[in-house]
């Protein structure tokens, strides 16, 4: 049906009531909490006594706090570096395992293994592996590896970004694998006749054909980067010092550790606004909302 563009109304379209279950969930678990958080951001509340209206006190305090900008800066680093590391790796792995050979299927199963592990399990495992006294470095007597990775403020953030990449590259590879398999073989056959090599095929056919997948994957990656919490919490709890205190973690520590739920609500609203702006910008500038098909003849 195409009602918006003045087209036909399809009488056989599903009733609007079908949307109720999803809407109830969305209202109950997204919109209502969001409104409550917005309300709480104007109160001072320790979680024990009743919230007291505080006007813009929390906003002035949190927006004047260098720690908020530090957390934002770290979050930005996580977003950019995660994208820069994960996207090329995922495309390469995804395109590679989209091949039909049997050994590639076996490798794919191995590559996708991290997908079935929970974030907490991954973080605990890496914490043990990276332990300077008991980790891999010590076990195999490799001095270069037996370093204080997570305890050193200079390396902690990069280690966190590495572990996040380890967890999420399989997921994005899966997207690219599916995307690459959708590319019609006729395109490759035609290019072969024209004399294109493998590399030329990759850049001239595979990458352009994956355009929509790249946009989907990047949106998920970037918006997802805004909310990483579990892995960082288990790995470093935001430390050492403030070295890995990204915005979601700052929000958690402010709210549930320091019992400043008003201040934490300010950070929560900030996160939502930033996430929305980025998601909207991505869909607008990438033309994703028009969702044109890249396939021939479709």
């Amino acid at each position, binding site marked *: 049906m195409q*009602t918006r563009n003045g087209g036909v109304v399809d009488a056989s379209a599903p*009733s*609007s*009531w079908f*949307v*109720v279950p999803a*809407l*109830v969930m969305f*209202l*109950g678990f997204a919109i*209502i909490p969001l409104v409550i958080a917005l309300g709480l951001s104007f109160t001072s509340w*320790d*979680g*024990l*006594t009743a919230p007291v209206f505080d006007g813009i006190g929390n906003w002035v305090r949190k927006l004047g706090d260098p720690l908020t900008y530090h957390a934002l800066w770290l979050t930005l680093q996580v977003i950019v570096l995660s994208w820069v590391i994960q996207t090329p790796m995922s495309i390469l792995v995804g395109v590679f395992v989209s091949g039909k050979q049997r050994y590639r299927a076996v490798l794919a199963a191995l590559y996708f293994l991290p997908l079935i592990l929970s974030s907490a399990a991954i973080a605990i495992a890496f*914490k043990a592996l*990276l*332990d*300077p*006294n*008991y980790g891999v470095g010590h076990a195999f007597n490799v001095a270069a590896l*037996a*370093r*204080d*990775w*997570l*305890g*050193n*403020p200079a390396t902690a953030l990069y280690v966190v970004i590495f572990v996040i990449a380890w967890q999420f590259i399989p997921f994005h590879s899966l997207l690219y694998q599916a995307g690459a398999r959708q590319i019609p073989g006729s395109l490759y056959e035609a290019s072969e006749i024209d004399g294109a090599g493998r590399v030329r095929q990759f850049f001239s056919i595979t990458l352009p054909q994956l355009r929509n997948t790249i946009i989907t994957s990047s949106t998920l990656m970037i918006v997802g980067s805004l909310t990483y919490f579990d892995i960082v919490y288990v790995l470093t*709890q*935001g*430390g*050492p*010092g*403030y070295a890995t*205190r990204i915005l979601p973690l700052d929000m958690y*520590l*402010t709210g*549930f*550790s*320091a*019992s*400043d739920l008003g201040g934490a609500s300010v950070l929560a609203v900030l996160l939502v606004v930033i996430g929305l702006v980025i998601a909207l910008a991505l869909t607008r500038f990438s033309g994703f909302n028009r969702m044109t098909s890249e396939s021939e003849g479709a």
Partner: protein
Amino acid sequence: MRRTAAAVLAAAVTVVLAACSAGGAASNSGGISAWSTTADKPNIQPSIADWNEQHPDQKITDNYFGTNDFKDKIRTAVNSPQAPTLVYNWGGGTLKSYVEAGLVKDLSSDLADEQDFTDKIVPSIADTGKVDGKTYAIPASSTAPVVLYMNKDVLAEAGIDEAPATWDELLADVKKLKKAGQAPISLGGQSKWPYLMWIEYLVDRIGGPQPFQDILDEKPGAWSDPAVIKATTMIQQLIEAGGFADGYASVSADTNADLALMVTGRAGFLLQGTWAYSGIADIDPDFVDDGKLEIAPFPAVEGGKGDPQSIAGNPSVYWSISSKASDEQAKAALDYVTTNVWDDSYVDTMIDQGQIPPVQGVAPKLKGDFAKQVEQMISDAPSFQQSWDLALSPAASTEFWTQLDLLFNGSSTPKQFSDAMNKTIGK
């Protein structure tokens, strides 16, 4: 089309609101409940089972949670209709915030008639359950001060045959151990809380209990007390001297990794709570029997005002009674505490686990050198400093962890530490 959408929206809102109010309607209907931690379950569960057997009409429902989960859960539950009758807490700052919010009952007058019970408890430990002289909480778990653990084998190899009595002796021992190619002190920096033990002992040894009391009394600039500055300076000197085992910022105390370094001979010293003792057997069952373990009080500081016999750590964990409880529930809960907690079987259960119950005259019943030595330290101690994080307000203690982290990894100076902590006063 539009009308349908509006109807759908209205229906959705109704369903959500109905769901919310249904959740809120449930409340505690007459039952007595107790929430505690899994760590203390072995002591508490049998005693509640006993009580339930003898009082079938006043049964207590007990629930246990991991320590950190418990702290998160109780914070939201304590002011809700689902608040447990018996609220487990660590006294200090949290208890004070409960009292200020009127969430727990003043037990002073009820306990005045229970002298047989109150006389059993070591007074300095009962004191942590008081706010402004009134009793709001009663001890229910073992006493766990922080002591200096030593691996005698490692020390002997470096030519050290005595526990360091003073800070300078400790520094000298560090040098000897380094010379012998050993890591001197194990420290579980990743868990952050072991950092606290160093600063709380040093401040007490240097300035006595007053500097921290000033902090608790929220005196402006209390964190800049010379004793605090000197303590943080000494900590950084110890770090510069290579006192702590390499990579200490990545060593986890929550998994006993710091204990393992000391027990397996990869470090000479460890400053830890007596609760770590039970973990030694898991790492090396023969460590204690072979006489490799020695413990000592934290060293004295030359010219310090503090008593070298003072101890710091966790006095106990306490039961408070929720003010949401009905009179009937509260009475039964208090009856349980005064009758079953610290009766003979409660004390024996604790002793069998190598713990030290905070009751008077328990020394002859204790098993093993470790428990006897610790009991001696407790009874000799003129004061028992509660772990700072428990005594501080939640906001101050959150900042405290971060600032300690910065101090111990050399990212901030003693002055920056004090300045940052001064900002938390009154929060």
